[in-house]
């Protein structure tokens, strides 16, 4: 009995060893001789080529810090330090040079028959308020914006680091706060002057005849000629572009990530600089460029002869609406124009 028991135990032990060996052998056989823990490892260069930036997961609450590399920053730097400086310098200085040259050649565009002494209302008080609010904001925004891009080249050497920083800090705050009334102004301009600024066939002829800028022609125009309509749409569309892109930068990470903010800044910078250049031309033609133009937005009235020369169809409309004698002190706003082909055929 004892030998039977011992033999049984031997068989059990042998079986157990056999089973262990059978189970364990494939496991050891699967283990390769040389381990390569980086076979699947992420590689920096590969990630950068694939995604152009590297991000992962972190432990701190600041999720935007999970982007650890965005080499696009170097491209944005190239844009801001080189391309934007060129675009801005050429646009703004080029426009100034053109205007000076134009003034020297052409001089102030005079009212050919002279002033009639009769005044006609062109812009209401509200329209003028709207214009000057937007204009004041634009000048502040333009100067403080130019300071951010060109200040360190132009003003920093003159003012010294400490004074220049104080001025730039105030300029930054002004730029941020003044953006709100500016945006309101652009919206008001869009709504109030939309009716008069829909392009029509009169504009084509106005452009063909050089708008009176080239040569001494006076092509007919309604309340706003093609040039003024162009300024209107530049203000509305350009103003919208700078406002939207600007608010994306004032409120970082509310709307977009770092890549979106770089694009927003690029749009903001380029559009704003072109905007400044266009507004220089607008200021020129509204002041020293043309006799009798400034008073339209200054006092709200224009001389009858000025209106005859520059906005003949508008004058006819005003006359037809109010009668020749009554139109003198009637506000020109608060009524929509419906420009039809029958009007156009007169010209």
């Amino acid at each position: 009995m004892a030998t039977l028991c011992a033999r049984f135990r031997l068989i059990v032990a042998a079986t157990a060893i056999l089973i262990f060996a059978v189970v364990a052998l494939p496991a050891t056989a699967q283990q390769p001789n040389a381990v390569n823990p980086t076979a699947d490892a992420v590689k920096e260069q590969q990630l950068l080529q694939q995604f152009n930036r590297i991000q992962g997961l972190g432990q701190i609450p600041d999720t935007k810090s999970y982007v650890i590399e965005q080499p696009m920053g170097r491209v944005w730097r190239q844009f801001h330090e080189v391309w934007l400086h060129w675009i801005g310098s050429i646009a703004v200085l080029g426009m100034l040079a053109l205007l000076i040259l134009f003034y020297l050649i052409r001089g102030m565009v005079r009212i050919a028959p002279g002033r009639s002494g009769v005044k006609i209302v062109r812009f209401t008080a509200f329209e003028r308020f709207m214009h000057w609010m937007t204009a004041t904001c634009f000048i502040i925004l333009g100067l403080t914006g130019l300071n951010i891009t060109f200040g360190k080249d132009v003003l920093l050497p003159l003012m010294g680091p400490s004074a220049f920083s104080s001025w730039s800090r105030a300029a930054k705050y002004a730029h941020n706060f003044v953006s709100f009334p500016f945006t309101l102004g652009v919206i008001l301009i869009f709504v109030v002057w939309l009716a008069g600024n829909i392009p029509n066939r009169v504009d084509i002829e106005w452009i063909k005849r050089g708008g009176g800028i080239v040569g001494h022609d006076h092509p007919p125009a309604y309340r706003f000629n093609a040039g003024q309509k162009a300024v209107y749409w530049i203000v509305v569309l350009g103003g919208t572009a700078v406002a939207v892109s600007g608010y994306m930068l004032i409120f970082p990470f509310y709307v977009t990530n770092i890549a979106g903010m770089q694009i927003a800044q690029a749009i903001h910078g380029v559009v704003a600089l072109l905007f400044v250049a266009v507004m220089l031309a607008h200021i020129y033609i509204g002041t020293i460029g043309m006799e009798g133009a400034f008073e339209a937005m200054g006092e709200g009235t224009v001389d009858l002869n000025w209106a005859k020369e520059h906005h003949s169809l508008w004058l006819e409309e005003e006359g037809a609406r109010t009668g020749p004698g009554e139109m003198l002190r009637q506000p020109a706003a608060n009524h929509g124009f419906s420009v039809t082909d029958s009007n156009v055929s007169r010209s």
Partner: protein
Amino acid sequence: MARMKFLCDADRCIDCNACVTACKNENEVPWGINRRRVVTINDGKPGERSVSMACMHCTDAPCAAVCPVSCFYTTADGVVLHSKDLCIGCGYCFYACPFGAPQYPRVGNFGSRGKMDKCTYCAGGPEPDNTPLQYEKYGANRLSEGKLPLCAEMCSTKSLLAGDGDIIAQIYKDRVAQRGYGSGAWGWQTAYRETIET
């Protein structure tokens, strides 16, 4: 003079965040700001790697180039520092930085940015070395005491290396040669325009 650099050996980083904590404590960094952070790429997947990232103190630093008030300067050791007295908090250095290093405490209106804060390589700022004023604005100035940044000094696996660029590059090279693999010196190509040939 040495050219100081950071190098994170991602094959050694165990995502313990000791560097983050060490930095915050040593420099008494303002609330909500992390000068250094650890980010795990492909978290939970095979081949995941953790990288500790802060300001890399770039050669020809983009932040310095785009600053509208020129408040950055590079020390003789190649460390990129800035003056909080001159900074206007415009956010441009953040757009330009390839490593997301500049951060701004939220002050006042909107998401309005305060004066930028970033890793100083434990080298203080423009104020006289080791003055309370310097400490309050920029944190510790270990470099002036002959010490390296605390994040790297405290790294338990010696994954994060700080010191002269040539020396830490050699250490990394030797490691890669010995163990037979390496996922690369993260950020070096972008920051220094060079890679470590291994």
